[in-house]
């Protein structure tokens, strides 16, 4: 547990000092929102509002891909990844620490992007804010757990910027299914449907457990 907290602390402190990851994620996701705004005809019409949950999650996934790629490439400087891997604990704790940091940083980017998205597409998110935060938190947990695992795999490959999306996007299908359906139900009816949340819970648990177990082999050189 102390290793998890140490890695979470280190990642948040280094990000707070440089702010390069959060800046890149925010700029990119906000640009995606603006592109959607201008690309879809008629601005905030009923038709575009119907597509809003899908569009919002596309912006979130793009932001996450940027952040996850940076998450481990920072560890290559001074061979710091080896320093972490030398810790005499089950390396699954290292995975959990990196996942927690990625989840927290992505959460900040998602909160800002969500507010701008609501303004641009004229959505009233205030009434469902807590339930939407729950859905976004669950969706992001699945995204960050499997994303952290594959970011660690991709970081030692020659084409890591390309490799991460290629590895990750197919595995995000159940996460996106659950997250987009739950967000759609929330925005249309104001209620949180059980089935997509159940899908998110099962997917999150599966990805977290499997990633925890295989991370030891992923860190091996």
């Amino acid at each position, binding site marked *: 547990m102390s*290793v998890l907290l*140490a890695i979470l602390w280190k990642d948040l*402190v280094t990000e707070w000092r440089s702010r390069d990851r959060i800046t890149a994620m925010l700029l990119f996701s906000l640009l995606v929102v603006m592109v959607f705004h201008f690309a879809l005809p008629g601005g905030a019409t009923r038709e575009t509002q119907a597509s809003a949950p899908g569009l919002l999650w596309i912006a979130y996934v793009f932001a996450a891909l940027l952040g996850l790629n940076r998450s481990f490439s920072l560890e290559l*400087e001074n061979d710091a990844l*080896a*320093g972490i891997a*030398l810790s*005499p604990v*089950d390396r699954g704790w290292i995975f959990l620490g990196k996942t927690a940091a990625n989840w927290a940083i992505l959460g900040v980017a998602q909160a800002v992007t969500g507010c701008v998205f609501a303004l641009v597409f004229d959505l009233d998110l205030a009434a469902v804010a807590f339930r939407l935060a729950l859905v976004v938190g669950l969706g992001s947990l699945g995204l960050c757990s499997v994303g952290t695992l594959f970011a660690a795999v991709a970081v030692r490959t020659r084409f890591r910027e390309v490799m991460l999306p290629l590895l990750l996007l197919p595995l995000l299908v159940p996460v996106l299914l659950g997250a987009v359906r739950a967000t759609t139900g929330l925005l249309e009816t104001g209620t949180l449907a059980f089935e997509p949340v159940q899908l998110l819970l099962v997917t999150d648990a599966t990805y977290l457990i499997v990633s925890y177990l295989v991370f030891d082999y992923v860190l091996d050189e």
Partner: protein
Amino acid sequence: MSAAALRASGLGKRFGRAVALEGVDLELPAGASLAVLGPNGAGKSTLLRLIAGLARPTSGSLTVAGTPAHLPAARARVGFIGHASLLYPSLTARENLIFAARLQQVEGAGRRVEAWLEGAGLARAADLPVSHFSRGMAQRLAIARGLVHDPSLLLLDEPFSGLDPRAATRLAEQLASLHAAGRTLVLVTHDPKRAAQLSDRAIVLDAGRIVFESRDGEADAEELERAVLAASDSAA
């Protein structure tokens, strides 16, 4: 009978088709000091990273104090000082040491960090980001980082590279005192003089195999240099 500090038997490591190490047999008693020499690409760093548990052997066995090297219990005994510093440039010296201590499950890191900084001669630079450090200061901090958990086996991968003569002399003195205090050292270096000065045993690797071995300080710097040159000629 106590387990050897380090024991390798038929140790091999491949990266795809490339053979990095093959058939390495090695036994190092506790408190000994081993220098590993050889031309570039001979497998020196691979051997060190296998001992540190950063990679798994593809053949043979490797134990640290009787425990397979890739297990957490073996990693707890090992201090690793690479030719990269393992430090985070945006963190201060103090933060880097506390982070390393927490990774190594050291109790009371916050209380002990002042002593570590003092020992490294970095007390006055404790709250400076490592990105402001000279190569010599970063190397001293990297060594302090590798020692926070008081490891019994210290692995050093070309620790003298990039140091000016004064910093190199200070590092050599520090390594000699660590060895005198009973720590087992494995030192990868290109410098036969340093190897002869700091080690009582030496091996020369070529293409992943041991091609020369000396014990009990029987080889001097000139003999080690001849062995390395012979290995380099065969590699060329």
